[in-house]
Each structure stands twice: as structure tokens, then as C-alpha cells.
């Protein structure tokens, strides 16, 4: 047959692998294409974390790399792993298989590990020589300062209060967020060269910017003014506001005196925080009064459940009408109408209480910006910004609870990052344009047969008796093995994780494996376009696209 | 010598084919050419079987069945009425019949009375075999008798041929039976 084997019979005996001359790629009407799709967790993260990427490092046991990946987007993983309400987990595709990946627990593990190991963020941007003023050392301000610093700018934070952290100290109780964690993560930002000036209240922004030679300013003082309702009360001292109570917990030598029976009015997370705090301060009864039902409560269900576990009582479908002379509160029962709005029923009951804490939300103190030309304040009392997060005053940006958005630590951190990018672009005379988002990797794009059943790892929790008496952290962290386990539950939605399925299932050997970390390539000489690789890709990272024929 | 052709009749299980083969071996041992072959058929016990043996001093080309035998050996007298055992037998040929009866008793006396004296013998080969071998296989004894009657082969050749086919005690027994038959036919009937 051939020169290689001159003696073998003609035509009947053939030299090995000669079919490589037959390029079956010509059969194809569609070709597979490797794509990166947007994982739902990333898509849901207000801080814009590339969660899947850092879980990927964690899966390999490279925790520092994982942490560094978080640090690209979020300077405070240890805090975030505790305080964030993790919308990522709500979006996680794994919940359709068993339970969502316990992302926040892994993040917390990484954050704690970083503090323990003293890891520092890696950044190599050259000094820009430009200066930015950040007003407010809360999540948004710290985040903006951190990111701006990574971009090479000089950042100074003016903080009105005596300690940095903002709502991370004054809004979230210690049993959810231990203060040493907050201190450590803020210190790390300072160590990068961010200057924090405490007890420095800004009255005249323009003057301060000029005096300090700042090229731009980011405004993030938060929302600290408690909303109030008018409840007729003979003794107004028995009515406190939640922000005040939580702030006092942090700043005062002695904890606030709330009494044995505490009523908290409101249905948000702050209401739950206060009720749980009251319990820990020795209240025998902590009652949350809320005008709608449990399903409608804005507070996160798991927090409500933990409060119930700790003995907090929920009294929903109720509004507080007035306080009588004996210090009792008259409560009207409510009923939900067809649209789910509470309507008064005319039925009343009385609740005995030593203190009523109002947890009805906060307003922004905008008094000091009202004089800045061009700055616009909306009807709801928040500052209006454009798509670049800039106020009507050139060079003045704002974010966090001050601007219209959900008020969470994570949103604040996200604002800080975005503002930093916008400010950075502004300083370069440009406009920040976010990259277009990839197509979402929804559950339908996955082939989940390939994933093993792996239920979520349960974080150990503190004994309930101790939870009711101390401010020790309720949830313990994951240990390393469990964090690894949890990271490995990630499905890698929409992005190749080198499972080799495409390489394995191609009947034509038309998928080339390029080696660890290099991914794969379709050999179009031989790919017949059957689509098996795309169909059997577990994570939806291959797309069939029509050939131009 | 001119070609000497022997035809053996018997039934399956009586060693008819082996007898022809042993005969050919004995002739071979005497430096002759010999050709033994069976009248081929399914090898079932009890069926009439014929085998042949040609002996010559020169190579044998002929492959036809033996039509005009120089000798006929009848291993089983029950064949006498059923098969034309003497068909084509040469007038001066030889006949050996395995029986303890006389030719007369067998009803052969008249048919064979033209044969030369001493060319027709009855030998109790089965009886000899039972006595010496312990089994009613008359072939070796008949070969011994054949050597004695025809004088064509030395007994030593027959003995060697028997031992070629039957080893050990069975060979010894068959040689004894053959010897007894050989001796038996040495005495005129």
C-alpha cells in the first residue's frame, strides 16, 4: 500500500491514521464556540464581585489568590462575608439542584484567613499624583478610597465621627459583625496609604476641596437621621429610634437602658437587629410590631428566624396608635387587602412596654450640600447623581445611602467601586464606560447531570442560651475543609472550568485540549458540528453558531 | 511375488479395520509394500464392516476396493448369510472363518470344497481372544492364523504388528491369542 509498508497487500491494508487526510469539517453547518456567560451570582452581586472566579481559586485551595480576586472588587471580604445579605446566593443556579452555594461563608473564611495571615492586596498602578477627597468613612467611602488608591490616586477621608466604619459599626450589631474584623479591614486600607481624618466634619465642601488641593471629591456620609412617626405619647423619653440605640451600643460606655419589655416598631433588618440587641441587653420580652405580615417583612427571612429562635416575638399586622399614661401602647390590628396593603380593622389591643424603639428607616442629612451649586436633592431627600455618579457640581461625586439605591453595606461598597472608576476616568478627562455584560448563564444553559449531589455546608451556630445573653458572634466560620467543599459546590455557570467534557465527548476528536489553564480549541478541520460538546458542557460555556454557507 | 489381496469381513467393534492395518504393518516389516484401507462408512457398532489389505513387492498404485481377493477373513459368522463374503474369491485363495463350529456345521463345506486343501480353516479366534485378552476381539488371533495358513508372513512380523497397535498387557494377550491360533492352524484340520 505504501512506502512505509511495501510488502502489505494493496488497498486492503492501510497505514495507520491516514484518515486525517479526510477533513470532515466540511460537513458542518454549525460550529461550536467557547463563550463566557455571566454567572448569576456575579450578576446579582451589588459589589460587582467576580464570585465565580474567586470560588475557582478557592476550589483549588489557593485561598490567597481567591482573596486577591475578591480584593479586585471588594476591599472588605471578612466584613462582607458576614454583613452582606448575599443576593448572589439567591441567584445561585445550584439551588435548582440541591441548595445554593454558601458563598458568603466562603468569602468570610477567605476574609478571616487574610486577616489571620496578614495578606495585603496586590496592586501595581503608578502614582497619578492626583488627590481625591472622600467624605465619610462608611462602606461606600472606604470602598471608593480603596479603589482610588489602587488606581494610583492619593486619597484622604474626612470622617465626622470618632471611629471609621459608619453603618458597619453603628448599624450592624456586633453579634453579626465583630468589631475587630471591622477594625482590621479598615486598617488594611489605611496601610495602603489612605489617610483617614476622624472627627472632621465638613461644612463647606468647596472650601475643603480647595484647601486640600483635591481634584475630586466623593461624598458618602450615609443616612443617619432616623425617620419618625407621630405617636401621641405622654412620656417621649420612652420612645427611642433604632439608629440611636445601635449607635449608643457602639459609642457609649454603658449600654442603653431599654427595660424588661421592649417593643420595636418596624419590619426591616434594623428592627430585627434592635430586637435581638434588646434581648441580649437583658430584656425578657422583645416584641417586633409590624403592620404587614411576616412574608411581607423587608427583613431577611433567616434573620427573622434567628430572632424567633432567640425568643423575639413577632406581632404583625399591627400599627401602634398611641401611648397611654401607664406606658402601654394601643395597637390597632390590620388586615391585608387584595393588593397586599394593610388596612385598619378598628380592632385594638394593648401592649405593655418599657421602651418603644422606632425602626422605620433613615434619612440623609443633606444640609451641608444644599449650598453647593448644581447639587440637586430629590423629593425623597437623597442626592441626585448622573450615570457617572457625579452630582450637578463638577468633580463632586456621591454614593452609598446618600443616593437613590438599596441601603446595604454591599451596595455601598459597590457604589464606592463604581464611583472610583468614574472619578478615575474623570481625572483623566474621560468618561467611565462599563464593559457590556455577557449573556446570563441561566439554569437552562447548564447540563447538571454531571454535578454530584452535594448539599450545602452548614455553618455552626452559637448555642441559643448564649446568643440570648452575649454579643458573641452567632455564626462561626467554616473551617478550611468545609470552605473548600463549599467552594467546590460551585457549578461555574457559563464559564469553562476545564472539566474535559467537550474534549471527551467529541466523536471526531475535533476538540483540542490545550493544557492546564489553557482551555480548549475546536479543530475545525474535523468538527462535523454535531453539537455534542455544547450539549454535554455542564456549565453552558459552549454555544453552537451557524456557519456561513 | 505378485500382489496378494486380503479382504476382511466383520462387524463394527470387532477390529476389522485394525486387522487390515496390522496386516499391512506386518508386511511392511518384512520390507514389502502394503496398503490397508477400510470400506468406508459410518463407524457404528455392529454394522457390517469390510476392510482390505494389498501386499506387494513393488509400490501399489491401485486404489479400487479389492474385488478378487486372494484371501478372505470372516470375523463374524453371522455375516455369512447376509453379505456375499466370498464374492470374487480366487479359486486358489484362502478362507479363514472365526468359529468354534466346523465348516459343515456352518454350512460352508459344499461351497468351499473346491478350494485347495488347507486353504480353508475355521479358527475359534473369539474364544482365544476371550481367553488371552479378556475381550471378544478376534482380529489378532485371526492374523496369527492367517500367517500360519498362508505362510505369507513370519509370525514375528505379526507379533510386531500387534505390538505396534496394542501396547503392554493387551499387546501380550493379543500376541498370545495370535500365537495360539498360529499354532492351531499348523495342525492339519
Amino acid at each position, binding site marked *: 500500500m505504501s512506502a512505509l509498508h511495501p510488502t502489505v497487500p494493496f488497498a486492503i491494508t492501510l497505514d495507520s491514521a491516514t*484518515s486525517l487526510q479526510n477533513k470532515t469539517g466540511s460537513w458542518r453547518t454549525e460550529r461550536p464556540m467557547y463563550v463566557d456567560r455571566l454567572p448569576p451570582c456575579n450578576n446579582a452581586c451589588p459589589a460587582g464581585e467576580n464570585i465565580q472566579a474567586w470560588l475557582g481559586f478557592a476550589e483549588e485551595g489557593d485561598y490567597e489568590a481567591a482573596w486577591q480576586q475578591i480584593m479586585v472588587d471588594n476591599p472588605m471580604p471578612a466584613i462582607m462575608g458576614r454583613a452582606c445579605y448575599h443576593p448572589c446566593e439567591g441567584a445561585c443556579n445550584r439551588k435548582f439542584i440541591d441548595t445554593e452555594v454558601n458563598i458568603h461563608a466562603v468569602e468570610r473564611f477567605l476574609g478571616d484567613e487574610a486577616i489571620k495571615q496578614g495578606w495585603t492586596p496586590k496592586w501595581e498602578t503608578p502614582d497619578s499624583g492626583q488627590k481625591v477627597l472622600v467624605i465619610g468613612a462608611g462602606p461606600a467611602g472606604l470602598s471608593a478610597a480603596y479603589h482610588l488608591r489602587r488606581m494610583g490616586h492619593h486619597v484622604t477621608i474626612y470622617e465626622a465621627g470618632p471611629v471609621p466604619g459608619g453603618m458597619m459599626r453603628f448599624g450592624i450589631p456586633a453579634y453579626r459583625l465583630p468589631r475587630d474584623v471591622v477594625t482590621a479591614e479598615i486598617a488594611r486600607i489605611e496601610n495602603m496609604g489612605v489617610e483617614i481624618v476622624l472627627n472632621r466634619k465638613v461644612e463647606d465642601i468647596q472650601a475643603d476641596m480647595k484647601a486640600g488641593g483635591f481634584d475630586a471629591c466623593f461624598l458618602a456620609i450615609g443616612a443617619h437621621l432616623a425617620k419618625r412617626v407621630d405617636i401621641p405619647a405622654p412620656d417621649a423619653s420612652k420612645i427611642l429610634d433604632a439608629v440611636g440605640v445601635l449607635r449608643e451600643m457602639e459609642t457609649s460606655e454603658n449600654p442603653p437602658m431599654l427595660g424588661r419589655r421592649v417593643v420595636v416598631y418596624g419590619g426591616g433588618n434594623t428592627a430585627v437587629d434592635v430586637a435581638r440587641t434588646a434581648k441580649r441587653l437583658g430584656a425578657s420580652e422583645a416584641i417586633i410590631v409590624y403592620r404587614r405580615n411576616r412574608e411581607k417583612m423587608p427583613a431577611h427571612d433567616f434573620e427573622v428566624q434567628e430572632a424567633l429562635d432567640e425568643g423575639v416575638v413577632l406581632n404583625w399586622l399591627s400599627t401602634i396608635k398611641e401611648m397611654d399614661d401607664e406606658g402601654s401602647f394601643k395597637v390597632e390590628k390590620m388586615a391585608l387587602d387584595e393588593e397586599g396593603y394593610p388596612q385598619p380593622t378598628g380592632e385594638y389591643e394593648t401592649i405593655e412596654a418599657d421602651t418603644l424603639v422606632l425602626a422605620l428607616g433613615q434619612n440623609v442629612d443633606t444640609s451641608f450640600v444644599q449650598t453647593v451649586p448644581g447639587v440637586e436633592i430629590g423629593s425623597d431627600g437623597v442626592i441626585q447623581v448622573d450615570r457617572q455618579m457625579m452630582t450637578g457640581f463638577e468633580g463632586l461625586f456621591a454614593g452609598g445611602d446618600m443616593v437613590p439605591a438599596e441601603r446595604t453595606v454591599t451596595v455601598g461598597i459597590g457604589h464606592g467601586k463604581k464611583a472610583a472608576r468614574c472619578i478615575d476616568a474623570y481625572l483623566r478627562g474621560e468618561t467611565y464606560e462599563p464593559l457590556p455584560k455577557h449573556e446570563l448563564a441561566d439554569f437552562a444553559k447548564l447540563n447538571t447531570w454531571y454535578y*454530584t449531589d452535594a448539599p450545602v455546608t452548614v455553618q455552626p451556630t452559637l448555642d441559643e442560651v448564649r446568643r440570648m445573653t452575649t454579643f458573641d458572634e452567632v455564626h462561626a466560620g*467554616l473551617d478550611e*475543609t468545609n470552605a473548600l467543599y463549599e467552594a*467546590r459546590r460551585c457549578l461555574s455557570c457559563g464559564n469553562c472550568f476545564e472539566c474535559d467534557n467537550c*474534549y471527551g465527548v467529541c466523536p*471526531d476528536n475535533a476538540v483540542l485540549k490545550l493544557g492546564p489553564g489553557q482551555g480548549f480549541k475546536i479543530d475545525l478541520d474535523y468538527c462535523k458540528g454535531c453539537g455534542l460538546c*455544547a450539549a454535554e458542557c455542564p456549565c453552558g460555556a459552549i454555544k453552537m453558531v451557524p456557519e456561513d454557507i | 511375488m505378485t500382489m496378494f489381496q486380503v479382504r476382511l469381513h466383520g462387524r463394527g467393534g470387532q477390529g476389522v479395520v485394525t486387522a487390515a492395518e496390522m496386516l499391512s504393518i506386518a508386511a511392511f516389516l518384512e520390507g514389502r509394500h502394503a496398503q490397508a484401507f477400510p470400506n468406508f462408512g459410518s463407524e457404528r457398532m455392529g454394522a457390517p464392516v469390510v476392510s482390505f489389505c494389498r501386499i506387494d513387492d513393488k509400490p501399489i498404485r491401485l486404489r479400487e476396493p479389492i474385488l478378487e481377493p486372494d484371501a478372505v477373513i470372516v470375523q463374524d459368522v453371522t455375516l455369512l448369510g447376509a453379505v456375499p463374503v466370498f464374492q470374487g474369491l480366487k479359486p486358489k485363495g484362502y478362507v479363514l472363518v472365526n468359529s468354534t463350529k466346523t465348516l459343515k456345521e456352518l454350512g460352508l463345506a459344499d461351497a468351499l470344497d473346491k478350494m485347495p486343501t488347507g486353504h480353508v480353516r475355521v479358527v475359534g479366534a473369539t474364544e482365544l481372544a476371550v481367553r488371552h485378552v479378556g475381550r471378544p476381539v478376534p482380529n489378532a488371533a485371526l492374523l496369527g492364523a492367517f500367517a500360519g495358513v498362508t505362510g505369507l508372513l513370519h509370525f514375528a512380523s505379526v507379533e510386531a504388528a500387534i505390538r505396534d497397535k496394542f501396547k503392554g498387557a493387551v499387546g501380550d494377550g493379543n500376541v498370545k491369542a495370535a500365537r495360539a491360533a498360529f499354532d492351531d492352524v499348523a495342525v492339519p484340520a
Partner: protein
Amino acid sequence: MPQTKLDELSDQQKVKFYQKGTFTVGNRLVDPDKRDVQASQDRSNAITSGHRACQGCGEALGARFALDAAMRAADSKVIAVNATGCLEVFSTPYPETSWQLPWMHSLFGNAPAVATGVQAAMRAKGREDVRAIAQGGDGGTTDIGFGCLSGMFERNDDVLYICYDNEAYMNTGVQRSSATPPTARTATTPAVGDAPGNVFGTGKNVPLIALAHNIPYVATASVSNLHDLEAKVQKAMSLRGARYLHIFVPCPLGWGSAAEDTIKVARLASECGLFPLWEGELGVVTGSDPIRKKVPVEDYLKTQKRFAHLFKPERDEERLAALQRMADHNIERFDLLREDKEPAI
């Protein structure tokens, strides 16, 4: 959310080694030697590119899966004998062959015997490190080659026979074989008449017949479960004597299934119970691969046009139920719904 006491920290859940894609072909988190052969850049590609199999061919895939695993197990010292059939035709039309191992095609019905000859030659030459594998489709195995197959088994010749079962004579244009399931439409069991498609009460289960020969190893496998398939090839190659591996390989053309669904269809066949994955040694069933996510037979049948008449113009409830009973019988017989559903690794 369930709760764990702090003092139970040491009792946190044990780590199963990797959670991401245990059933995938490979995984960067697993030791290379524990990954599937198919994950390796150094896999043999016993049958390489350029072959003329249809798009999404299950048989081409099954052949590479099995032979690459066998070559890994035998240090590449493998000789393959191929019965006539699709695999042979699409891999070796003059002047090109796709095989990268010594390969031979003789006839339709004699592959087991030819392999016996190869093996005998190797033994005579003292080359018992070279292993013989015979392979064929279901027609070549369960029908025309069955006599030779049984002979090879009975003599316990040191041959691994691999049947690529696509449940009909595909090479000749989809005619019924003794591996064609009831109700399936083929060119010789058309979907016409009162009971369209192949009839109930026919066919033979060659893996069980193989088992009845008391040979060292018998297993069924599927292209949909590579871990299982490769483990079985490895097991088979670790033994001497006659071994039989029956691999389920969907045929998009013959079954009327989508090319990209080949593995999915195979998966459904096992997950519904119609094609149970099991193994046996010396006449005894020793294990089965449990169903992970049980589905009704319908889910499987609906993927293929050869069963379309069971659903249109109206549902053939009676025969659907009969097929479900077949699946249920397998599930019971091979204990496919037991609890230990995770693979050992």
C-alpha cells in the same frame, strides 16, 4: 436552616473529594491518574479524526472510549478485531483508516474467532502482553456472530469482546436485530398495523447469556457514563480469559434522535431503567450502577422518532406501560434505586 452546636465543630461534614463535576470527563481538581483516560492529552485516540461516522455517532465515541481505556490498561499493546458494520465501514474505506492501533476486519460474523486466533498467535509467540480485543455492533454480536462469540466464551479465550449496541442493523439501513427493543421502528419492523414497530416477546439479552457462560467478566456500559465505562474496561483488562462488554451507543440516524442528544439519549436509557448498567463475574451479577435521577421511560422514548408512534396520533398507553414494566423489571432485578448513588471517588 439546620443548626449545629459549636462544640460539634469537629463533626463538620466530611469532604467528598471534589464536588464539581464528579461525572465529567476530567477535572482539574483531581489527580491526573484518577481522571478519565478521555481527559488525558496523551490518550491514544485509537480511532482518530477523519472517519466517516455520522454527526453525533455514539459508536465512534464508544469505540474510542473503550479502546483508549484498554490501551491505557495494556500499555498500548492492544490488537483490535472488528466485525463488519458501521464502525468498520466508516473507519476504513480505502485509502484511509482512522485506526491508530493494529486493527483487522475479517467478516461480519467471525470477529470473536479472529480475535481468538490473534490471541493464540500471541500466546504461541510468548507475547501475552499483547491483548486481543474483538468488537462489533449488535448485529455482528447478538445475531450473525453469536456462534463464534459463544465459542470464544466457552473456551475462555483471552479476548475482550466489545459489543457496540445501537439496537439494529444500521450499516445496512436500520433493520431489526435481536437487540432491537419492542415497539422500535426499523426498516423491517415498520410503524404500521395494529402493533407498529418491533413486537414484544422477542430479542435476546446477550450480556446475561454471556454471564451464563461463567466467564471471568461481563458488563454493560454506556457512552453516557464514562467513569463507569472506563472502570469496566480497566476491570476487564485486569483479568484474563473471555470477557464481554456491552456498550450502549445511540445512533442518531437510526433512532431519529438529534445528533447533539446522543449522550443524553443514552443517559435517559439508563436513568429510566431500560438499559441497566451492571457487571458480573463467573456467572454471578456482582454490581450495578444505581440510577441517580430516575425518569419514566417516556422521557427516553420521546427523544427518538423510532418510538414516535407510541405518542401519535394518540398515546399507546398499553404498550407504554409494557415498556415501563420492562424498565421496572430491570430496576428491581439489578437493584438500581438503592441509596449509594455517589461514585466511589
